[in-house]
């Protein structure tokens, strides 16, 4: 089987999907192998008034993520940790079925999966987001906007979230205590004096779609419509699986679940590594002359 080869392996597919799938060398109707992703465009820092943002375009799937860091109170059971909250908005422009409250279920599914995968010490160290234990912490509000649906929303959203978090800059605060011992916060004068979010261990979601006897990653909308069951995994760069859930009506026998997990892990590690490398590369590039994302 082919390995994920970065973002370049785009094979214009000509074969009819229904007639014949995976007939020749496990090729899919667009010419990809089962573990190949489509070409993915990524840009960070696209929304200037958010703390961090990114935009991901995976073929026709288009996702914009903004992270807003605000001060809030920590959860009662985790007084010395910050919080991260996800909210997904399915734009009615993306798909006609999203109109009204049509996208709500999907939005909830994506945000729950992301929340679950990030609610884990090995994915994100939220203790660094704590400002005053028990009183104040940073809350990262992650807003995910689906602009266009071209299949594989979960994976694309998770990549965009990880990129946006990587891009997030949180102002450093000085905590001073007065004589009564009451803490107060002071903002530093320098707007460049910021803290970054460590996303080295942040997970990416990998969706494995069971089609016939095969399972494929990065399914197109057509492939998704043929999928009877799918497995969504949150995988970190170390290969830790932090989320696992099945979806759709079909059932999976234990053996193929195991097989799919092996694939998912392999693809996930590769995806994480490629993403991290590209994000670092983007940052070292000369300061951008202008934002590209919406001006192309």
């Amino acid at each position, binding site marked *: 089987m082919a390995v994920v080869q970065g973002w370049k392996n785009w094979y214009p597919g000509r074969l009819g999907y229904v007639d014949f799938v995976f007939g020749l060398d496990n090729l899919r109707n667009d010419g990809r192998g089962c573990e190949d992703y489509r070409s993915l465009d990524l840009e960070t820092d696209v929304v200037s008034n958010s703390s961090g943002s990114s935009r991901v375009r995976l073929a026709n799937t288009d996702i914009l993520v903004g992270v807003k860091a605000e001060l809030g109170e920590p959860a009662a059971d985790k007084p010395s940790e910050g919080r991260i909250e996800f909210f997904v908005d399915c734009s009615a422009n993306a798909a006609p079925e999203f109109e009204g409250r049509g996208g709500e279920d999907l939005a909830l599914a994506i945000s729950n999966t992301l929340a679950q995968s990030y609610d884990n010490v090995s994915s994100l160290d939220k203790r660094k987001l704590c400002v005053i234990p028990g009183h104040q912490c940073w809350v990262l509000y992650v807003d995910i906007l689906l602009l266009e649906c071209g299949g594989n929303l979960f994976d694309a959203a998770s990549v965009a979230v990880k990129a946006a978090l990587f891009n997030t800059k949180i*102002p450093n605060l000085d905590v001073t205590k007065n004589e009564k011992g009451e803490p107060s916060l002071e903002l530093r004068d320098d707007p460049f004096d910021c803290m970054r979010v460590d996303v080295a261990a942040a997970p990416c979601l990998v969706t494995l779609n069971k089609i016939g006897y095969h399972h494929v990653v990065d399914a197109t909308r057509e492939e998704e419509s043929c999928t009877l069951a799918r497995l969504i995994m949150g995988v970190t760069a170390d290969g830790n699986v932090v989320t696992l859930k099945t979806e759709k009506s079909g059932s999976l026998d234990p053996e193929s679940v195991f097989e799919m997990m092996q694939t998912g892990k392999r693809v996930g590690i590769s995806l994480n590594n490629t993403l991290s490398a590209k994000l670092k590369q983007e940052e070292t590039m000369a300061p951008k002359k202008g934002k590209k994302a919406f001006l192309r």
Partner: protein
Amino acid sequence: MLKSKVFMLKTKKGSIMKIVREHYLRDDIWCGFLACELCSHDDEKQLPVLELSPPTSSNLCPGSHYLIPDTNVLLHQIDVIEDKSVTNVIILQTVLQEVRHRSAPCYKRIKDCIDDPGKHFYVFVNEFHKDTYVERLPGESSNDRNDRAIRISVMWYGKHLALSDDSLRVVLLTDDVANREQAKQNGIHAFSMKDYVKSLGNASDLIDKLSTDENKVIDGKPLYPEHLPLSQIQEGIKNGKYMQGTFQASRENYLEAYVNIRDEEHQVFIQGHDYVNRAIQDDLVAIEMLPEDEWTCPSSWVLEDEEEKGDEEDIKEDEIVRTSTGKKSKIPSGRVVGIIKRNWRQYCGMLQKSVLKGSNRHLFVAAERRIPKIRIETRQADVLDGQRIVVVIDSWPRTSRYPQGHFVRKLGNIGDKDTENEVLLLEHDVPHSSFSGAVLKCLPSLPWIITDDDLTHRVDVRHLPICSVDPPGCTDIDDALHCIELSNGNYQVGVHIADVSHFIRPGTAIDKEAANRGTTVYLIDKRIDMVPELLSSNLCSLRSEEDRFAFTVIWEMTKDAKILSTLFHKSIIRSKAALTYAEAQLRIDDKSMKDDVTEGLRRLNSLAKILKKIRIRNGALTLASQEVRFHIDSETHDPIDVQTKELRETNSMVEEFMLLANISVAEKILDEFPDCALLRRHPAPPASNFEPLIRVAETRGFKIDVSCGKALADSLDAANIQENPYFNTMLRILTTRCMMQAVYFCSGMCAKSDFPHYGLATPIYTHFTSPIRRYSDVIVHRLLAVAISADATYPELLDKHRSQSICNNLNYRHRMAQYAGRASVVLHTQIFFKNRILDEQGYVLFVRKNALQVLIPKYGLEGTVYLMDANQQTMFTYNEEESTQTCGDVSLHMFDPVTVQISIDSTNIQHQKLCMKLIKPVIPNFSVNPCQNITEDQPPNKKLKN
């Protein structure tokens, strides 16, 4: 070119916001140089601008150059910058914005410089110029970024100007050493303000205006505790440890003060050098309460900072003050821990020359008693001696006994009446410059005629027997009256008020000027008009036998003053007579006069008596304050005699109808505009205000009931002493001092329960009857005109927030006008006594610990008889409980009649004071002998020689 500016902000709630602003850079901004061929510019529009070859006399930088000051230079050396010899300055936008942010008054003064075509100031918007915009670098503070922006602009100017004229240079003025070093590395000519000014030829005047260096360390041990840093203060205020409020120094004792706590009614008392800790009148300060066992109370000392004291001398007065505090009721006391905002302004006063010969450091004594002495540096002390000068404070280091300041300008000779009037007006912030061209343009052209159009919109009442009654010499007559008997036996009473709002249209230059001035200010020998003279003394003034526009209130009344109907309309009137109070009184009393006007006056008089009775029955107070008249010598304009104003029946007659008109109008406009009527209220004073009054009345066996206005009025009426007829008047004077200030307000901004006017005992009141001299009345006229559909409305009139801000200004101006008026009386009293020594009958108004405060009814004058000699020794025993001073078998109580000798104490020729010495009761070794009332045969206006 689009850039975006990003910055973080902490909101009041404590959340942190990231704010992004778009910032567009331009390539078409002009450099301000007329001959520049590189920049696009429209020569005709963009004036005033830099001169082509600016004159220069600097030996540091020979050759033509422009100056570019940095922010701190503008802030601290504004007096130099303002000087007319400083021209051709380029003000960078970065600098202007910083100044605006840090000091609004300074910003205004710079704007005035920029607007002055003779100064050739040019504002360069460097922040929007594509070549001079700089983005903040990581790790750079915003101050550093601004300094860099300034340097970049100066460099750009240097290169840019060289392309047009290579002899031109730009000079950066900065007092920051590090900035200067960096600038020199960049090849910029940079000097400190001091060096630059000193390099100018014949600049001794400018050198005096240089602000002293704030950071200069003055050797010597610290005399005052350190002020806390602002962050700590804010912290403390938040958690309730400190409180903030405005600092109000005592007029009588320079070591005592009160702080009016913000948002609360009570005051906190501050006493002593350490606790006052360099706070100056009107500063916004942070204070800490003292523990209750350290609370004190005002010491009853009258203390003045007399002699110059060296820094090294210990501050001894503290001890005197503290130890002398009796065990009387202690009041909440505190100490100043820090200054939140200085409210320094320019102070008028005079120089107190240093005793050391040849010293450049002198003290400055402000005319305002609550301002401490200020140390200034000047080389022209001999010239300034004997002159009134203006000085500002630069700083007050811990090691200095006095604040440090610098000289700004001179006003004229001390004792010169024009100079003194100028001082008075400046000190009370009275706008008194002549009216600008824009204002005068709003005036109607003469001859002014009444058009047919006017006749259709106004009721013609020129046939009515209208007359005006005013004080003698009044030229701004804004009210006139009439009263005729109707066929049904009732009276028709009309009050006609000058229709000023016809001439002052909203939004015009004249309207804005009048709104700012707020009121006409009356000094003894001068009137500072609110509107130009053409209006105040001619077109609006209801002169006799001339057709004038008026706003009329007509009542139908029964003979016992019951109002049957009220009617408002705009009208044309023709006053039949402009009378003085005395003339009107004569006409009423002269039984032989039977003309319409006189008959009208008699009817008005009888109605007024009834109205007054009703008013007093409702609990209106009759209060006393001393008003005096000066007889002014027609040639020298010096006062030759003083007497208290006489009150006639006619005064009261006019007053009653004005009150009635005001109340009727107030009801009408409140009815029509419940949310935006401009009204006047007089809050009932809190009971605690009356405590001193009640206490002193008790010493004479009278009980003053202050439960309500009526009770107070009745108990004041009952308090009479046979052998001391002046006692009652004095009680009323004291009562007046317990009262609150009456204020204008906008009805939508105040609870209905706060509307009543306490002094007049009416539920609602406004000012309608003097639009020539009060802006409030103009607004009320406009409201009333809209209410009766005689005029169109405009948005600002109905905006309650706008109205309230107008009210706030009016209240301030009104108060200042009163103070200025009183100060003018004091000034003239001093001039009057300059060459006189008089023995006068007076009464003890207050008994203080070391002095008596004596009131001289004949002159309405209050003065102090010191009971102690220079060494704080006294022959008197002070009884705090009963407020008496006893010496041998003579004891002095409050209200006791005394005879005092009044003279001017000229021992310190710079600082003349009214001096009073006791004659009667005779106390051996203390009282002085009576003199014949001598008037020295000197011309009274002889100038003082130093």
